[in-house]
């Protein structure tokens, strides 16, 4: 009661004060500036306490034209905090801002600029976007005004990019990186970084200036920068910003510049090894802020193996640091290092430390990073150990991250299964340890795999049979067990300990504990038993005939019992055998679990796909089954689980690549980044002022999956967002795409998945068409997706003898394509190797008699055929030239591959 009284008293007091202020504002005699400021300030205070304010705006606007700083400041603060889109006031406000910008009084100019930067409305952009660049680059502008102008322009560029004109000032902005005042450089670097992301070519010159500036900072003695030294670290925030600016660009092509940057990065890495200049955490944090950003840049460039490995070793030291922050950041950063070819192995050496982090860290977010890192460093060599550790962690893991670990274990187990008995054991363990967190995708998948691989079916039947013996087993296990015994119970029925009757009794002992969908599944398993084992037919018929089945309150269960009983009584053995035939193999497709994990981790703006596919034993299947039985057709009983429907069906839409002609003809297809994806699968494919499109892709044989990330770079929603994929050419790529929510929030990133199938060899890449509304205007964007023929390579190792034998076989003139071309990049052996591997072939050592040359082999997988391919690359360092030779059994393939690869060096 006391609290309520207190609250009531506060409201009373405030209402009284509001009435007082209102009467002052309405009073007959005009208030002087001081009183006006006092009351506006009081209103602001009341507003910040959480009360609504519906007057005082006019008085606040009046304050803007005062000549006193304090009055002006309160006026601007009120406007910034209580932005009101009342158009009459906006005109007055803009007028006051205009006067202050023209006042040549730096204090007033800054107040006006800060107000624009804080409000950033479209009206303000319209009024001032052309004026601010002039203030920024004018020779006589004070440093502090320049700082504000730079960031003000940045804000307007983000909110209304179309209103900020590029012009003569852009070149001059870049030169602010040379400014003597480090505060100006700090603000300018942010502005340049944003502009460079949007139009990298216009700001290319910033790279050399940024490297020069960074170099001066990192080599300076700590006292040189005076005001900008923070706990003995020279300009840490500026260094971080410069390093981020450099991440907008690839490594510099100019050798001198490149080596200067490498020196900077080495210096930063060296400093991490020096004894600390202070014991304060501020010192080490500031130093490490720069170090982590430098490592980000090294990873972004992904081209200097030595730096990558050094970065990895440094992070390795942090893994055992006493500061939790550092351990966390090291785990996070190492995750990205694990994806580089150059440092993947180095990362793996830290596996034991990461495993122990999983067991000992107190902060769940740190343990989560450890799981992420183990997942990232997993490959065939360590999969068994990592999966075992994750499983054992799962027993005690926090509820919040269990589902994610389950998905990760399931993916790794499938991806690296050499031996499918291990896979089956792993998934059953998952169900045992964390059954509640095993989603449908996971247990559907184990069934798909068991059905498709006959070498594991007997083992799977035996294993589920044993697992079902446990007195308490998870319902998901009953589902998997029911399905697998229904299909393959016969494979273990020879053993008297698992005779048909024992199997049936075991399954049926779980029946009454299960939910309706599981019971329905078990009934289907029973009818399959009748077909597999005539000796238990009578027993099962008795069960089906019992009241609890035939008169079950649940319609689905009752109908199944009735139909199955009838089917077993009237159908001949032959018909029964045909109807209840073993499930045919599922068409091979990419695991849906991956998509699930992705979705969990994603921004959460995706439509919920779960509901639509939750029709396990649902009505669709049901009606099909009726048809099958009624007409006595010979078509097998439908799949118990509807596993044959695409798991992400529902909101997903099949983009018809051939009939879709809606793509607007007027849009130019962007392909500027296309060739950069020939040897890599991830990166930014497209970017303009509003939107960034990133890609991650994976390919296996003739199938591919592409994750498309749409990032809204503005702070405003994109509306009516839609995307479609068109193939300009023939029947060569099918793209299955999941839908994206039509609204993308400002600053949000959403993801879409494309499935790709290569039918036969092709040249033209598919085009992604995007449409959305931004601030009323319809945006149309078309981007050529980097799906190239070489993505469907599987590398092939072979001996020297084999290689030359095949080389000779492919000796017909039309099978060979050769190209001689000039080197566009430095001829670095490691880089060349990485590119050839990235292209998709195996690099064969010791085949070519000349060790300077590179020889590779691989097979292109298409649905219709496989095309073997041999390649040889001969660098000539003196001439800075290459000769590339490709031999394949198909001339169009040789030509296409040669065109693609020759652009890469």
């Amino acid at each position, binding site marked *: 009661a006391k609290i309520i009284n207190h609250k009531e008293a506060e409201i009373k007091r405030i209402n009284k004060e509001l009435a007082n202020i209102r009467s002052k504002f309405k009073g007959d005699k005009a208030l002087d500036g001081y009183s006006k400021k006092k009351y506006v300030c009081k209103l602001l205070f009341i507003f910040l306490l959480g009360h609504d304010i519906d007057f005082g705006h006019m008085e606040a606007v009046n304050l803007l034209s005062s000549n006193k700083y304090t009055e002006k400041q309160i006026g601007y603060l009120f406007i910034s905090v209580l932005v009101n889109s009342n158009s009459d006031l906006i005109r007055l406000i803009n007028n006051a801002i205009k006067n202050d910008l023209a006042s040549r009084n730096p204090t007033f100019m800054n107040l006006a600029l800060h107000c624009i930067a804080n409000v950033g409305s479209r009206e303000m952009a319209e009024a001032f976007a052309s004026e601010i660049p002039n203030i920024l680059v004018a020779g006589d502008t004070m440093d502090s005004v320049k700082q504000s102008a730079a960031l003000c322009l940045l804000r307007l560029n983000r909110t209304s990019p179309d209103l900020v004109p590029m012009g003569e000032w852009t070149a001059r902005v870049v030169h602010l990186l040379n400014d003597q005042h480090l505060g100006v450089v700090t603000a300018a670097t942010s502005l340049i970084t944003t502009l460079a992301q949007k139009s990298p070519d216009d700001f290319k010159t910033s790279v050399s200036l940024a490297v020069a500036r960074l170099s001066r900072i990192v080599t300076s003695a700590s006292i040189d920068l005076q005001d900008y030294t923070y706990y003995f670290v020279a300009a840490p925030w500026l260094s971080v910003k410069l390093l981020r600016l450099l991440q907008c660009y690839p490594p510099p092509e100019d050798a001198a510049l490149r080596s200067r940057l490498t020196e900077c990065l080495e210096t930063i890495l060296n400093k991490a090894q020096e004894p600390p200049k202070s014991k304060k955490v501020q010192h080490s944090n500031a130093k490490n802020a720069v170090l982590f950003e430098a490592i980000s840049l090294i990873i972004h460039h992904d081209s200097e193996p030595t730096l990558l490995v050094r970065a990895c070793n440094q992070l390795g030291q942090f893994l055992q640091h006493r500061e939790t922050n550092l351990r966390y950041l090291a785990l996070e950063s190492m995750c990205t290092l694990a994806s580089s070819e150059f440092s993947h192995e180095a990362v793996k050496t830290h596996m034991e430390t990461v495993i122990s982090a999983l067991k000992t860290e107190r902060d769940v977010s740190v343990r989560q990073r450890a799981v992420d890192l183990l997942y990232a460093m997993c490959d065939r060599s360590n999969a068994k150990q990592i999966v075992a550790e994750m499983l054992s962690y799962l027993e005690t893991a926090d509820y919040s991250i269990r589902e994610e670990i389950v998905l990760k274990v399931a993916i790794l187990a499938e991806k690296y299964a050499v031996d499918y008995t291990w896979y089956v054991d792993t998934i059953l363990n998952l169900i045992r340890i964390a059954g509640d967190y095993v989603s449908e995708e996971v247990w559907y998948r184990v069934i798909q795999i068991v059905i498709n691989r006959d070498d594991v079916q007997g083992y799977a039947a035996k294993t589920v049979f044993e697992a079902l013996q446990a007195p308490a087993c998870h319902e998901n296990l009953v589902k998997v067990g029911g399905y697998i015994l229904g299909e393959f119970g016969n494979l273990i029925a020879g053993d008297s300990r698992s005779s048909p009757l024992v199997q049936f009794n075991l399954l049926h002992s779980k029946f009454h504990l299960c939910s309706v969908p599981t019971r329905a599944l078990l009934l289907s398993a029973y009818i399959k038993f009748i077909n597999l084992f005539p000796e238990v037919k009578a027993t099962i018929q008795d069960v089906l005939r019992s009241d609890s089945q035939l008169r079950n309150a649940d319609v689905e269960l009752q109908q199944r019992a009735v139909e199955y009983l009838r089917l077993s009584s009237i159908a001949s053995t032959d018909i029964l055998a045909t109807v209840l035939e073993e499930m045919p193999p599922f068409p091979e497709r990419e695991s849906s679990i991956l998509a699930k994990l992705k979705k969990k981790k994603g921004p959460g703006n995706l439509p919920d796909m779960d509901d639509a596919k939750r029709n396990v034993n649902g009505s669709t299947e049901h009606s099909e089954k009726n048809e099958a039985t009624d007409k006595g057709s010979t078509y097998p009983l439908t799949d118990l689980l509807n596993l044959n429907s695409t798991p992400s069906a529902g909101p997903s839409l099949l983009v018809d690549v051939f009939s879709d002609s809606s793509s607007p003809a007027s849009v130019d297809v962007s392909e500027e980044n296309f060739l950069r994806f020939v040897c890599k699968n991830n990166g930014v494919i497209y970017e303009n002022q509003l939107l960034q499109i990133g890609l991650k892709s994976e390919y*296996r044989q003739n199938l591919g999956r592409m994750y498309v990330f749409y990032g809204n770079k503005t702070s405003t929603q994109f509306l009516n967002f839609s995307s479609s994929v068109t193939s300009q050419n023939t029947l060569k790529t099918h793209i299955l795409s999941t839908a994206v929510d039509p609204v993308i929030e400002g600053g949000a990133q959403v993801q879409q998945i494309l499935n790709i199938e290569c039918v036969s060899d092709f040249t033209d890449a598919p085009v992604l068409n995007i449409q959305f509304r931004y601030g009323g205007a319809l945006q149309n964007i078309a981007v050529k997706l980097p799906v190239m023929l070489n993505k469907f390579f599987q590398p092939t190792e072979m001996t020297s003898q084999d290689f030359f034998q095949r080389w000779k076989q492919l000796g017909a003139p039309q099978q060979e394509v050769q190209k001689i071309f000039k080197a566009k990049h430095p001829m670095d052996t490691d880089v060349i190797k990485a590119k050839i591997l990235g292209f998709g072939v195996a690099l064969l050592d010791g085949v070519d008699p000349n060790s300077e040359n590179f020889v590779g082999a691989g097979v292109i997988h298409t649905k219709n055929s496989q095309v073997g391919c041999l390649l040889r690359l001969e660098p000539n360092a003196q001439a800075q030239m290459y000769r590339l030779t490709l031999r394949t059994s198909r001339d169009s393939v040789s030509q296409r591959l040669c065109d693609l690869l020759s652009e890469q060096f």
Partner: protein
Amino acid sequence: MNISGSSTRFSVFLFFLPQIRFILIQNRAGKTRLAKWYMQFDDDEKQKLIEEVHAVVTVRDAKHTNFVEFRNFKIIYRRYAGLYFCICVDVTDNNLAYLEGIHNFVEVLNEYFHNVCELDLVFNFYKVYTVVDEMFLAGEIRETSQTKVLKQLLMLQSLE
């Protein structure tokens, strides 16, 4: 080489919006002492964010990191006596740079208000906004030199 990628990463791309989404100063009871927004949020959304941040941050102890994942963003925070200083940034942003950005800001407040306490922030709220705008503008770090910021603040003080 493993084409299908042993290396599939699930974190986001380098997606540059290195923009502070908001800065919050809250006390342990959840009272807001400063809220500075750098993105458009409506009032209900702001209130929700304030409550969520408080719930997320106050349960953590000294053994935890100073970083928390938060919706699509992350919160970098540090506790000073009874006050939590929180900065919400993009997940790709540099954690330690913002952590020290907070400390730099706190040292400036401390110098300016001569041993700052919670009540200073309450009664001098309009001055705190000025300090913020000097050091952070448009969601970016504007000025990092304590000397320069304090000199400017003293100059402005002399105009009062």
